[in-house]
């Protein structure tokens, strides 16, 4: 009886963790939130970062900005994927300027949230800064 109760508990936990309601608050690869001088909230990434957006969003606008030039003076490039599906590569040719890119998020999600992965082709020491990511705007 005790064993069955334990198995039921583990099964219930696994079901809950398959699609956690709190995933929207989880991110990785970001530093803490900051504000640039006009008051725009943003977070620095490292070479990669991930966050979640609600699955019912059909598109998102992702504000990106770099303070450094890319490798060999070329523009910094940011590759964006949704649940491992390639979405776009955003080039940031100008430094100190916010670039807002609208990205369609179509397709079935199967969960409450989609995982968005950001990969940057340039990280600057000593604080290992990639790009600045602002607050994501969602279209439903």
């Amino acid at each position, binding site marked *: 009886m005790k064993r069955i109760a334990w198995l039921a508990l583990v099964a219930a936990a*696994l079901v809950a*963790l*398959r*699609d*956690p309601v709190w*995933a929207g608050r*989880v991110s*990785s*690869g970001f530093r803490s939130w900051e504000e640039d001088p006009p008051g725009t909230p943003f977070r620095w990434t*490292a*070479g*990669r970062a*991930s966050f979640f957006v609600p699955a019912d969003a059909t598109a998102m606008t992702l504000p990106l900005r770099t303070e450094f030039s890319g490798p060999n003076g070329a523009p910094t490039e940011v590759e964006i994927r949704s*649940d491992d599906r390639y979405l776009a590569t955003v080039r940031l040719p100008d430094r100190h300027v916010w670039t807002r890119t609208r990205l369609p998020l179509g397709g079935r999600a199967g*969960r409450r*949230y989609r*995982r968005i*992965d950001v990969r940057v*082709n*340039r*990280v*600057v*020491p*000593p*604080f*290992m800064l990639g790009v600045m990511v602002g607050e994501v705007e969602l279209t439903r």
Partner: protein
Amino acid sequence: MAARGVRHFVAAVGFLAVAAYATIYARGWADAPIRSDGYSYYLYLPSALIYHDLTLDAVARDWYDGSYPPFAAIRRWPSTGRWLDAVPIGVAAMMLPFFLVGDALTWWSNFPRDGFSFYYQQAAGLAGLTYALVGLALVRALLRRYFRDGVVLATLVTLTFGTNLFHYATFDATFSHAFSFCLVAAWVLLIERWRERPTAAASLGLGAIAGGIVLTRNVNAVFLLVLPFRCWRELWPRRRALALAAIAGAACLLPQAAMYRFITGSWWVNSYALLGNYFNFATPRIGSVLFSTQKGLFFWSPALLLAVAGAFLARRWPRSFVAATGVTFALQLFIVASWSEWQLGGSFGHRAFTDGFALVAPLFASTFDWAASRPRARALIAAFAALAVLLSIAQMLQYWLGILPYANTTWSQYRTLFLRFR
């Protein structure tokens, strides 16, 4: 009452530790668990099991454009250009089961399998917490063989909350100290069992634990001296069992040696040399390590003075620990005090000594045992222990809240901040 307290002590500390751990991260008192030294200890796992790369190159490329942040104790070895992680692989090996659960949950929940997302962080943090609890259970098993329940309970409470042990089980759980505490506790207990029955399994276990101690923190090899001190009469008659233990220990060290050989061309190296740290044996800062406001062992954990008293009060079995504890402590003190970074960076109290607390537990218990039959001494020692525990808890909370500096605390700062929580 005391028997019940002893029986449920580890579970109660586990409950408190999980609550403290959750509060620390929910309130943002600390960055995610894999940070600072913890990052360097943990790095082997994602490198090997997610990036399938033992050279540590892939993580550097993926996260940091081919380099590592300055806080990480990882540098390129000059002659080969390969990455050398200054800390050994022992903590990562002990974290492995937790990492595998974290990795499975990451896949199951569609979180990023990058080695550093939510479940990996909690797996690493909870690994340290769990090993600290296992270490406490082992210390309890050791003490229960020789002391009354009341004495065992007083010792466990003082050891857990009167020192920085609880801090390294929760706030800085990915550092090596909770892991080493557990291994040294297992080492001391196993030596006692091996003295009674030197079976092949006990000998193999002894060797494996000895290997684990060195693999977790190289300098902790000093704890291996406990064996000859506790069993000097048995060493020669049991040379075959010891050879078996030595083979098991060597087998544990082999992966680390092979890694050093691949990276540097030598089988064993001073892995901290590239970080600019060095020993200065001519001018050890012994007074600073023991009593300074910066990281003085007895300044920040005055409860440990009860263990010093225990060295003089110990009778019968615990008496046999005095020489082993004294010599290992003296050696450890000399090594730490001679190290250029003698404060060991940011820490609550002096963390170099947390690893060996299992060894001082019988001395703590000796003081409580001695006082138990002397009403005046009992009141005095109980009052001192209670005050020391309360002070340690208060200062630990101050440290967590960022009120106490992480390092280089001056007397003037200490006085100004004494028991202030805002």
